[in-house]
């Protein structure tokens, strides 16, 4: 390195995401427990319905969204909790990166963390619930990715807020879940239709909501994040 200069917003964000993922990669505790939780939940929910009435393949989309939501909350909980220990957030704030980069870095880290969990959960879902492997499953994976962008955008911001409160573990789901409603509603509708073999055009309005949500909340939460830090 020849000279010290502040990196741009996106490259700083990428650096921060790499920092978080490096910590995660070395300890692997959160990733492993979130993964086991997700697969455990998949198996438990199999017994929550009567299989003689509802076919497991019809149940699968519902289970997918429940598991996705709660494993996301687990991952998000940890995001800023990591910085709270040893007041790492103060070190981030005095470093020459913009506050928006801190937010984006955290969000990218969370997104990659959750994607890694889903990369195992979705095949496990197909395995346990006898889903046909093929194009519909690929479409559902794409929808999961779109849904996760929205979930992570909102959840990262609320995670930053929740760590500074009493009862952080309780507050994060309480703040986030209402914001997940439009995401889950439209994503679940698309997934159910796709897995039932219906044409994609039927899901178009839901897809539009999902994409619009992602765009609006990534922008809004990036702009709102600086307000949640000490002034």
């Amino acid at each position: 390195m020849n000279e010290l200069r502040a990196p741009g917003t996106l490259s700083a964000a990428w650096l921060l995401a790499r920092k978080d993922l490096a910590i995660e990669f070395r300890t692997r505790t959160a990733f492993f427990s979130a993964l086991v939780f997700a697969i455990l939940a998949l198996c438990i929910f199999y017994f929550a319905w009567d299989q003689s009435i509802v076919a497991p393949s019809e149940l699968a989309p519902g289970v997918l969204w429940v598991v996705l939501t709660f494993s996301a909350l687990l991952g998000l909980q940890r995001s800023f909790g990591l910085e709270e220990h040893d007041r790492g957030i103060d070190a981030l704030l005095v470093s020459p990166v913009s506050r928006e980069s801190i937010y984006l870095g955290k969000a990218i880290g969370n997104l990659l963390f959750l994607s890694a969990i889903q990369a195992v959960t979705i095949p496990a879902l197909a395995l346990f619930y006898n889903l046909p492997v093929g194009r519909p499953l690929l479409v559902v994976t794409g929808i999961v990715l779109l849904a996760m962008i929205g979930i992570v955008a909102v959840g990262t911001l609320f995670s930053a807020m929740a760590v500074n409160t009493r009862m952080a573990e309780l507050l994060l789901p309480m703040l986030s879940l209402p914001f997940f409603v439009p995401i889950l509603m439209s994503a679940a509708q698309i997934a159910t239709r796709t897995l039932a073999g219906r044409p994609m055009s039927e899901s178009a309005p839901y897809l539009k909501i999902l994409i619009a949500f992602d765009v609006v909340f990534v922008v809004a939460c990036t702009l709102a994040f600086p307000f949640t830090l000490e002034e």
Partner: protein
Amino acid sequence: MTAPFRGTTPQQRDPQALVAKPIFDWFFAFAVVAVIVLYVRALAFTPPDALQGLAQKIYYVHIAAWLGAYTAIGITALMSIVYLWLHDERADRLGEASAEVGLVFLTVGLTTGTIWAHRIWGAWWVWWDMRLTLTLFLWFIVAAYLVLRGGIEDPGMRGRYSAVLAVLAALLIPFIHLSVYLFSARLHPMPVALQPGRPKMSPEMLTTFLGSFVAFIILCIALIRARYRLGVLRDIASAAEIDGDAR
């Protein structure tokens, strides 16, 4: 943060004067009278609906409660933007007061709605109704706003966090609205009073209906005023406690 309680600084020197001021004043008394007049008019002097019978009279508290709730929540959203912009504690306090009153009105709207629906629709709760579902989620958001406030000690941080939540919630509402709209069939009766060409309400009923709007808006403002004064008192108390600890 320079002056933590800018709005209350003059009174802080003489808390006795402010403490002596009741949180319920003449305006609250006026609101109570307005609501009692409305109750008497609705229950004794308004004819029952031809189809729904007496249950239709729930409209006069139910729809007015929605109006109060949306007024109060609108004030919270507006005050949150003002707070993020000007950092004035009065905006924060007014936002908090309106949110709490909004939650009360939402609760009244939801409970009276289910009582009405269980006979008229034949079910206590229906998910296909857009307004019902939307309002339920609004209830959860307002509840989260108040719980968030309860979890933060520092006034500046409490104001910023809750204002951020309120502004994001204002962006969220259209999305919930749209997805619930797509999700549900449209079976809820449309507002009868505001449809030109379909005057299904008799003039007496219409007068009571509009009167209920006036009475409950007055009650809403009176409650927000009272809650705002409680907020002022609470801020003085916490300042006094900090002051006492410092001695």
